[in-house]
């Protein structure tokens, strides 16, 4: 079956140097560059030309290295980012510009972006925005929302400036250089060349029984080192992120519950993998009837996915206050609606990847992750090993957005390394990543709202069902969060909200930026517009009338005396609302087919875990050489924790941020700063960093007996403190050094103060909320159904912007994801398992975004700061739907609002 290979040595020019390599027939240039020639700055996101991350210059022209036959470069010139950065002045200049604008967040798309931009800049010194879009349209970015990239390429004035990085200033990312020079190492960039590879055998059916054939015979094949199945699991064949809901096996044992579920894994040489036909693996499948929608899954006749979960109901959430029914009865106007959304794929450009090895008898897993300590705890259970025998070393993460909180590649890596005793690696294919990792929960929501004639909401009744797929993952979190947040940031005294998570034979739905709140906000914010219209009240003013205020209880009965910033956000939109609605009216008077509409929507989001402890610990210290060390364990998935946490720490200690030696997450050396989720890192880990910085300062001023506000400088071996009494010096060589090499150390923990929710959902679920309001202007082509957002104005209450440039970066990226959810994204198992059928926004789809930063300080936040990451995309989709309504008169109640759906609804309305 396998044909003999005739490889050939080719010669070409790689980054202006002669290169030679043996090439196998059909080998992709991307593989040749990365594996044979060490050019791991060429990133692979899809292997299909859909993402452009692998862009290189071939004789000066950008091409996808993943679609280029390696043979074709013979005698030609290939340039990659790392090479360009080393030799090309224009590239160095662009790299500066990228950093000055925060144009690289996670950095996985950056090589593709920069290489494409260099091709443009070589022929066009002063490109326009449209030139940049055309040149970069083939590279997908999931973090930045593209606007900062456009600014960087056109050479707009720098946003970041030099400085000490104290809280409130925009400095460049402290970890930014490696993202723009090609040296950042992501999950697939750390394995040694030639090491064993892992291939996971997955179910082709939503539900199937299966039998494994003669694995011993298969194992005898040349190059196969091991086959892993459920039998190889020494601990328990189960994982999950919530202890009471752990229900997902590493390998299915007799029946699979979703398309893409693993049943076995092959560990083999790269040579074997190059020609391996998955069909040759000995497994027989028997497809079984599957429940793939929440309605079918709750029927008596439906197959039950998990014991003890009758009618496939995983769990529910409930919040009530006052009397919702009575409030609705008393209303002067009521509105109701039924809203739906589908699976949304995280679509980070870096597929899950990693490498593992055995070091001194311990297993060491290097992989992309948002939660290293949770990975460790998950592996303890699966491997049946004490945690001292496991080390998790996170690589750079090429985007996460929630999905890289769960285990994915880690169990296969650890099991593979333990079974073979050799280093092993794995990188999911794009399809595998999409099939097998978590998604945003599809939602089915019914909502009724009533208000009195003055526009005050009198009653609110919400019911939402969420498709949690085959396994719980973060489904219980979604079920709990939604009823708490479904009110939006409003004062509602008669409220009832219930949610249910339903198991189906679909991929597991888990955490995705917002944990169910973006879905509920679509229903709530859409109906707010409908209600305002019925009442004859301006929709923005209607929101201001009902906005939550300091001292007014939330629907959970939680009263904030301070820090409620939604009114300020909404009021900040007034000027744009007035000018844009007037401009849209004028536009529409002369435009029969293209109709312009303006929409607004708001949102809120509680930072940190819901009524559960979620501490972060940050350790810092001083080395004998005078270097300040910060153990920063909050994984930076592009959002900027490495910079923001360091800025907070540096401000507390009173030193420049760039003078600090940062040591990243590593379960062997850095304390647990918790998971990167729930918009908690700036708030929770930021507080731990502040406490650690303050404690270290306190230690120093006490030891030196100087004023509390003394200016500290750290010099070679000496700390110098300057206060009113003059200059004092502490010779560190006289101080004893601890076993971590520190002469001074301060480890501090912060855990947000919350209270549990009672049976009616009353309590104090979060110590702080962040608030947001968006305005969007859209043009709808009413004949074709296409919706084109042309402008956003986004007001965000972040309490205190630690780094305003990075705040903008989060806002832009969240809006891009919200726009995708609103207009184009829907994951359908078996149908949209790649990045050309599953569409995420390109650089041409994101219009200018004006960010208005509101700073209503929060008493709990570090220097008043609040979380931001998830807040951003909550108002985006409903704002777009409201704008479509304003433009066309048509209310869209399901997302994505594809051209097909919008046009169909417009035609219905015309009949």
């Amino acid at each position, binding site marked *: 079956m396998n*044909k003999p290979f005739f490889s050939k040595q080719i010669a070409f020019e790689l980054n202006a140097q002669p290169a030679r390599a043996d090439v196998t027939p059909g080998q992709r240039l991307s593989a040749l560059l990365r594996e044979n020639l060490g050019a791991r700055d060429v990133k692979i996101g899809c292997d299909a030309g859909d993402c*452009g991350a692998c862009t290189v210059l071939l004789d000066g*022209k950008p*091409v996808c290295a993943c*679609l280029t036959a390696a043979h074709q470069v013979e005698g030609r010139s290939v340039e990659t980012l790392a090479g360009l950065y080393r030799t090309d002045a224009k590239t160095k200049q662009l790299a500066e510009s990228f950093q000055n604008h925060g144009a690289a967040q996670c950095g996985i798309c950056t090589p593709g972006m920069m290489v494409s931009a260099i091709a443009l800049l070589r022929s066009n010194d002063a490109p326009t925005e449209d030139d940049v879009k055309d040149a970069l349209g083939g590279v997908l970015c999931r973090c930045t929302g593209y606007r900062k990239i456009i600014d960087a390429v056109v050479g707009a004035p720098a946003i970041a400036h030099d400085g000490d990085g104290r809280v409130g200033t925009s400095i460049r990312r402290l970890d930014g250089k490696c993202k723009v020079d090609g040296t950042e190492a992501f999950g697939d960039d750390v394995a040694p060349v030639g090491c064993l590879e892992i291939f996971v055998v997955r179910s082709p059916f939503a539900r199937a029984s299966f039998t494994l054939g003669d694995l011993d015979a298969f194992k005898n094949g040349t190059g196969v080192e091991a086959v892993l199945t459920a039998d190889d699991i020494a601990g328990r064949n189960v994982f999950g992120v919530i202890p009471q809901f752990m229900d997902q096996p590493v390998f299915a044992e007799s029946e699979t519950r979703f398309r893409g579920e693993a049943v076995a894994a092959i560990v083999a040489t790269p040579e074997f993998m190059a020609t391996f036909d998955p069909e040759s693996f000995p497994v027989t499948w028997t497809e079984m009837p599957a429940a793939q929608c929440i309605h079918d899954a709750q029927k008596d006749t439906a197959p039950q996915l998990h014991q003890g979960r009758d009618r496939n109901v995983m769990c529910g959430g409930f919040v009530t206050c006052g009397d919702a029914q009575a409030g609705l009865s008393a209303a002067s106007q009521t509105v109701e609606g039924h809203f739906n959304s589908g699976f949304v794929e995280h679509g980070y450009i870096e597929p899950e990847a990693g490498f593992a090895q055995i070091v001194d008898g311990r297993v060491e897993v290097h992989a992309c992750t948002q939660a290293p300590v949770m990975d460790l705890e998950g592996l303890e259970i699966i491997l049946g090993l004490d945690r001292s025998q496991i080390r998790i070393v996170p690589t750079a993460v090429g985007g996460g957005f929630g999905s890289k909180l769960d285990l994915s590649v880690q169990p296969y890596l650890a099991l593979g390394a333990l079974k073979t005793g050799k280093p092993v690696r794995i990188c999911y294919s794009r399809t595998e990543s999409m099939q097998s990792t978590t998604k945003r929960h599809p939602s089915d929501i019914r909502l009724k709202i009533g208000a009195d004639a003055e526009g005050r909401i009198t009653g609110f009744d919400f019911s939402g069902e969420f498709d949690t797929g085959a396994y719980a993952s973060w489904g219980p979190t979604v079920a709990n969060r939604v009823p708490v947040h479904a009110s939006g940031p409003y004062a509602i005294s008669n409220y009832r909200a219930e949610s249910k998570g339903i198991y189906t034979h679909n991929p597991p739905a888990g955490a995705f930026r917002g944990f169910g709140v973006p879905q509920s906000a679509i229903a709530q914010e859409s109906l707010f517009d409908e209600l305002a219209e019925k009442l004859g009240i301006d929709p923005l003013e209607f929101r201001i009338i009902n906005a939550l205020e300091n001292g007014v209880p939330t629907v959970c009965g939680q009263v904030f005396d301070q820090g409620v910033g939604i009114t300020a956000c909404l009021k900040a939109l007034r000027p744009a609302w007035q000018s844009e609605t007037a401009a849209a009216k004028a536009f529409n008077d002369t435009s029969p087919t293209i109709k312009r509409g303006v929409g607004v929507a708001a949102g809120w989001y509680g930072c940190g875990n819901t009524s559960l402890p979620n501490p972060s610990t940050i350790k810092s210290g001083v080395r004998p050489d005078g270097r300040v060390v910060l153990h920063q364990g909050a994984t930076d998935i592009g959002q900027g924790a490495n910079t923001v946490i360091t800025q907070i720490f540096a401000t507390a200690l009173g030193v420049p941020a760039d003078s600090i030696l940062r040591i990243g997450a590593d379960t062997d050396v850095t304390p647990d700063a918790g998971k990167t989720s729930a918009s908690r890192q700036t708030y929770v880990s930021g507080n731990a960093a502040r406490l650690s910085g303050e404690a270290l300062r306190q230690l120093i001023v006490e030891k030196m007996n100087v004023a509390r506000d003394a200016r500290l400088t750290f010099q070679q071996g000496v700390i110098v403190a300057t206060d009113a009494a003059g200059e004092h010096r502490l010779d560190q060589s006289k101080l004893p050094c601890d076993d971590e090499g520190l002469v001074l150390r301060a480890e501090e923990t912060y855990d947000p103060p919350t209270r549990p929710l009672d049976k009616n959902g009353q309590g104090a679920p979060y110590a702080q909320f962040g608030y947001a309001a968006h305005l969007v202007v859209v043009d709808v082509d009413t004949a*074709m159904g296409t919706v084109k957002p042309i402008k956003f104005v986004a007001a965000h209450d972040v309490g205190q912007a630690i780094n305003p440039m990075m705040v903008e970066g989060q806002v832009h990226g969240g809006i891009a994801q919200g726009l995708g959810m609103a207009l184009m994204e829907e994951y359908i198992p078996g149908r949209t398992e790649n990045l050309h*059928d599953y569409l995420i926004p390109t650089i041409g789809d994101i219009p200018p975004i004006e960010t208005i930063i509101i700073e209503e300080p929060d008493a709990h936040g570090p220097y008043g700061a609040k979380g931001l990451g998830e807040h951003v995309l909550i108002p985006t989709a409903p704002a777009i739907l409201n704008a479509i309504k304003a433009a066309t008169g048509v209310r869209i109640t399901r997302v994505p609002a594809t*051209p097909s759906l919008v*046009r169909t609804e417009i035609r219905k309305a015309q009949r």
Partner: protein
Amino acid sequence: MSYISPKNMHDALEALAQGSGKIIAGGTDVYPSAQPGHQPDFYLDVTRIDGLNRITTTESTIHIGSAVTWTDIINADLCPAFDALKAASREVGSVQIQNAATLAGNICNASPAADGVPPLLALDASVEIASLARGSRLLPLAAFIQGVRATALQSDEMVVGIQIPKPSRHMTSAFEKLGSRRYLVISICMTAVNLAMAKDGRIADARVAVGACSAVAQRLPALEASLIRQTPDRIEMKPEYFAPLAPIDDVRGTAAYRYDVVQEQCKRAIMQAASR
């Protein structure tokens, strides 16, 4: 298994005569459709064959070699009748794809949503095919593409180029593509129109081709006939003109939606071509 990159046509055809090979140029369809573990006997790279990467013009035809990329077409000096083809070239995938992928590869891949096909149909293009055994033959494009992912190409044959009868310098052309996002998007439907206007402002010649609304993109003869001797402001879209179409429901849109919007799209493309 081997990778052959011949310099001349004869060597290429000789290789094809000997076994089951996979022809590769830009690789933009070959790699995404490759099945793991399934290798061809050999890859035949056509990009180094002498002459295939050129666009040549004779008295009566324009010949686009089978290694000509979308970028080559964008950069070529072609008369306005090729504007739709150029516009389609700019809309295919991304710059990366346009720099590598070939027009000939696009028709050989025979996707119902191939962006190159409607403009070529509107140009009355034919496909020049060669084999060692039977020499060369010329097939109208509509006969070359036989269905979804199906062409008239035999296993020992390859496309040498695309031949287009030289259009009048006065013929204008326009292309409309509908997708759910700006770049890197598979068309929901697309339309190419080539028009020749008479001196009196009426349409003298009209060719309208629609893609992604049937298994193979097609011309709409009844619509074309209705346009002749009309002034552009009087054209009408009647359902019967679109009767040959057979759109399907898929993730990009419903059949009913495609049927609906393609009519508007044709109208827009005609107006645009007429205004040039």
